[in-house]
């Protein structure tokens, strides 16, 4: 009978699930992970609720770093952030496969294994999406001086943006709000960034922009219009690079 571990769609949840599965010492065919709310009851499966804990998470993290190396760790780190429902299962499968091969640190070279390939693809999608947001995130200056941005990404990419914007704006107070996953990335001036969960956004406060803000938004929109060369106009090409659904929170398209 296959054992399937049911966990929350968080790093702690998934890593705790992997921890429980790993402990059983069973093989790939006998183990699985499924996210809460996505269970498709199968016959011959035994479902087990995961009790998540920080301790289990850290243990799994160390296990990956130690035995699979940083390359694999990085791929898994990104894959966990994906919106794909089978990501937990793919990561578990990849880890179990790493146990079977002679050099587990070379696991990323085994792309012919379906679970390894899946993790690789998820990771690539997430890092591409994160890169996309490095380009098209727009900050607005609120009346309290905070630079505020909101996005609606598919994956939970906030942590992938933290270092980039911290290096860029070390002396600013800034904040990015992920509307899809209701999370905040918060950077207080001259400090490290932090991820804030379980908070609600104050919709009124984020509408109150500074006096200067309107001016610069207008200047930017003016610039955006005037740099296009009339004789070369091509909205198709513009859309090819910047699909409409990404434009929702982008200043120059509002």
């Amino acid at each position, binding site marked *: 009978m296959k054992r399937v571990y049911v966990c929350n769609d968080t790093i702690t949840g998934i890593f705790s699930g992997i921890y429980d599965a790993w402990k059983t010492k069973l093989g790939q065919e006998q183990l699985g992970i499924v996210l809460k709310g996505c269970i498709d009851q199968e016959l011959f499966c035994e479902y087990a609720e995961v009790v998540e804990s920080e301790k289990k998470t850290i243990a799994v993290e160390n296990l990956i770093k130690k035995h699979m190396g940083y390359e694999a760790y990085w791929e898994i780190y990104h894959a966990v952030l994906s919106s794909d429902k089978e990501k937990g299962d793919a990561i578990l499968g990849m880890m179990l496969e790493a146990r079977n091969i002679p050099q587990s640190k070379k696991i990323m070279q085994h792309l012919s294994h379906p679970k390894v390939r899946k993790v690789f693809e998820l990771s690539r999608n997430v890092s591409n999406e994160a890169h996309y947001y490095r380009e098209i995130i727009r*900050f607005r200056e609120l009346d309290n001086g905070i630079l505020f*941005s909101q996005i609606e990404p598919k994956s939970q990419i906030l942590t992938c943006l933290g270092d980039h914007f911290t290096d*860029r704006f070390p002396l600013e107070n800034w904040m990015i709000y992920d509307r899809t996953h209701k999370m905040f990335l918060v950077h207080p001036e001259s400090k490290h960034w932090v991820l804030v969960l379980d908070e609600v956004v104050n919709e009124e406060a984020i509408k109150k922009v500074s006096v200067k803000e309107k001016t610069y938004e207008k200047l930017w929109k003016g610039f*955006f219009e005037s740099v296009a060369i009339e004789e070369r106009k091509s909205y198709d*090409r513009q859309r090819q690079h910047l699909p409409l659904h990404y434009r929702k929170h982008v200043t120059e398209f509002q």
Partner: protein
Amino acid sequence: MRITENMSLSKKLNILSDAAKYDVACTSSGTDRHNDGTGIGNCVKAGICHSFSADGRCISLLKILFTNECIFDCKYCINRTSNDVERASFTPDEVCNLTIEFYRRNYIEGLFLSSGVWKSPDFTMEMLYQTLYKLRTEYRFQGYIHVKAIPGASPELIQKVGFLADRMSVNLELPTAESLRKLAPHKNRKNILTPMRLVQNGMAENKQELVAYRNAPRFVPAGQSTQMIIGATPENDFQILNVAEALYKKFELKRVFYSAFVHVNEDSNLPARGDEGPPLLREHRLYQADWLLRFYGFEAKELLSEMNPNFNVLIDPKCNWALEHLEVFPVEVNRADYYTLMRVPGIGYKSASRIVKARRMGVLNFEDLKKMGVVLKRALYFITCNGKMMYPTKIEQDYILRNLLNVGEKLPISVTQMNYKQLSLFDDYHFRQEQFMAEAGKKAPIEKIIG
């Protein structure tokens, strides 16, 4: 000249970004720099593009002129002194504020500052210097700066500016000295190439200083670039490509940009205005060839010649080269060296290096090549795997050409939106699609078709 005292900032920005937009370089790439914790901004080597304007071009930098006042009279330029256009100038603080405030909102990667020649080249260069100095020291901006060196400005000034900028460029403007004389009477080869050489030498010296003192200030770390206007003067592609090659080899430029001529002035020295729009396909072919020079080890004289001085409208420069050199094909994928592989149509430099790596592990077949990103429908005429071709095929110019044309080429949308009218621009290529079809049908020797 109209008076522009008390002009609003938004009006100025409008005029001075509009006047700068014909400059094609917009990349923010070439250097990595972390913030030192005392200011704002960093640089990312691959460059970051923040938006796309209505013409589909990437917006990465705040691209503006410091002023569109100009004492020169370049025929192709909207700002030439003889034009009656509205003139405006920024102050250094205005440029700094715009840069910082746009950057804070993540609109841009940095500043691209160019300028008309106001009063004198030195006066203008001094204004640019003051602006950058303020931006770097007072405003503590550590993002990307691309600045134009003004032809005719003194070496000391160019030197000083070079220590504040990431990239510098001097526009070559036109491919030959003759054309320059005709269309840009106040400029000449010498005062364009002098600052270019200066920047090149400055970079070389700086490299040595950096070896000796790791913390020495950095001079133009992202290198220099230039641009040429294509289609305003009668040079052929062969001449243009030779100029580009010389610039890469002798001046160690990072990039040469090509800018399809856009009609903004009426002037008897300019080509007559038609309704065909800028020569975008020609521009595209030049970029493809430029890529071959920089990454594929091609030389200009391999791609074109006096006899055959223009690129083919219908096929890209690499395919064209391969068709002219069928004697070297087919090549055996399991043995050919990296450089030979890169020359095969359908094999890019990435797939070439994948092939070289993968074949160490075992013999490759066509299926493997496909997985490595080789475009087999193009490559199949030029390669063997284990001594076998993919299908039995003739190795004959017109046969292969016809088949490659059936496969089609993926052109950027901006180019494919051209109508037949625009293709007729290439009449002086002795080339027309109809003509080709007719002749190909008759199995005419290819030389006649490609001209």
